[in-house]
């Protein structure tokens, strides 16, 4: 069944008091399910990721004889590229699929129908909190991943090279500049916004039959992975295009 309501950009910003209150309630629930509940998993994955990356980088650099580039590589490769991508893949597998399934199930159970009949704007009530909650969560999960990754990297380097923590932190801090931070946030924020928007779109596309729910979910996941990769590559390409004065 087609939706009766039509999307308007302002639906992403509920203003009326009742709608705003429900928006924040749903927003906080989304952040809880997407970010808070995924902290242990993100921390664990980030920690292992840190151990693995620092070990590999360290081994490769010692082979090349340029050990002092380890911080630079950790920032460029891990912080700017791998962490946003890992966060995106993690949340696509964990939450984008859940959002698409939930909305598709809502449609089958006629809950979407009920919202429309009660005069509730589903874009303000269901979609906006999920999209904003998903975006904030994507950025936050990426930050947790990075923090845990740093811890893993330091433990790995400390065990092999006896590297004190303050020196390690100083080394990383000296390599991170505003552009890196901007790229990190734009990649995670934009990916979060787009993939959660896509999950909502796919979930609401369901025609009303329960057997289509897995199809809708799979579509949402595959599309989200593709879009996430395109966003990551585009931002990196844009950065290099701007910083080198065009594609060489």
């Amino acid at each position, binding site marked *: *069944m*087609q939706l*009766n*309501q*039509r999307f308007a950009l302002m639906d992403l910003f509920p203003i*009326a*008091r*009742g*709608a705003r*209150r*429900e928006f924040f309630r749903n927003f906080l629930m989304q952040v809880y399910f997407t970010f808070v509940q995924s902290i242990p998993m993100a921390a664990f994955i980030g920690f292992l990721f840190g151990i693995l990356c620092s070990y590999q980088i360290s081994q490769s650099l010692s082979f090349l004889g340029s050990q002092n580039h380890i911080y630079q590589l950790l920032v460029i490769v891990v912080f700017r590229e791998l962490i946003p991508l890992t966060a995106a893949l993690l949340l696509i597998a964990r939450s984008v699929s859940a959002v698409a399934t939930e909305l598709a*199930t*809502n449609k089958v*159970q*006629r*809950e979407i*129908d*009920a919202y*429309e*009949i*009660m*005069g*509730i*704007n589903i874009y303000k*009530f269901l979609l906006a909190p999920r999209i904003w909650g998903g975006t904030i969560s994507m950025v936050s999960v990426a930050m947790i991943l990075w923090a845990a990754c740093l811890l893993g990297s330091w433990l790995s380097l400390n065990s092999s090279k006896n590297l004190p923590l303050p020196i390690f932190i100083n080394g990383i801090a000296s390599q991170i500049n505003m552009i890196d931070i901007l790229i990190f946030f734009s990649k995670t924020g934009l990916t979060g916004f787009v993939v959660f928007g896509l999950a909502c779109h796919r979930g609401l596309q369901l025609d009303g039959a329960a057997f289509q729910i897995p199809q809708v979910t799979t579509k949402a996941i595959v599309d989200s992975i593709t879009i996430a990769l395109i966003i990551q590559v585009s931002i990196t390409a844009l950065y290099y295009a701007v910083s080198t004065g065009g594609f060489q």
Partner: protein
Amino acid sequence: MITPKQILKIKNLTAATPLGPLGATAPVNLTLHSGEVGIFLNDRECRKLFRTIIGQGKLLTGNIDFLDNNSRNITANDKDAGFLLKNVGFGFRDLGLISNRTILENVDLPARYHNYYKKGSSDSHLAKAALTELGVPRKYWDKRPPHVAISIRKRALLARAIVLRPPLLLLDEPTALVESPMLPELLSWIDSLKDKGFAILIACTDYPFAGAAADWVVDPDSNKITTSEEYMDPAWTKSGALLKDLSNRLVMR
């Protein structure tokens, strides 16, 4: 006693709805006043009419006017949520409760979303009154729909339809999922709504219930409006003949 006033007037209506064309055999004509109950025994046609009334159908011919002093054409207002909210309460047949909210939150949702409570008020008195009116025991209020019996869910759906006290109620199969001993209770509830001035349009396939509750019935065979007396008369309608046959069989047993 409330003076009856015209709540809904439908004239020569045909429409394209998500469920199919409405009025394909004959256009729909009806007038519903406050304190009146009209029942469609052709439930599929009635669901299409419900869809059209709540703005989910495209009017092809005719018009729908709400409230005698405030006539509005549904096509011009089909996306006006505020209008629907103030004028129409919709009682779903079975599905439609929000599964991640409690029974009380479900009934309270329209009131909260549309700001019917004063700032700082958190007692949900509108929802509690509706649930009490429908006889939903307090112990179920904080449970989620999948964790309560289907008859409680049904009562919650009906409570949500009346929570904002709209003048027009559309009830889709109110007798479905209701246990037989609860039917007199349901009839009393409908009578009490009539006394309070609600105009009620019902889609129903329960013939005896229709005979007991309706002021007029749309006969499924002729698609014409009959008074409840005519409807019960076997000489007038097939439905009447069916009811007569049922009562004869009961007597014979």
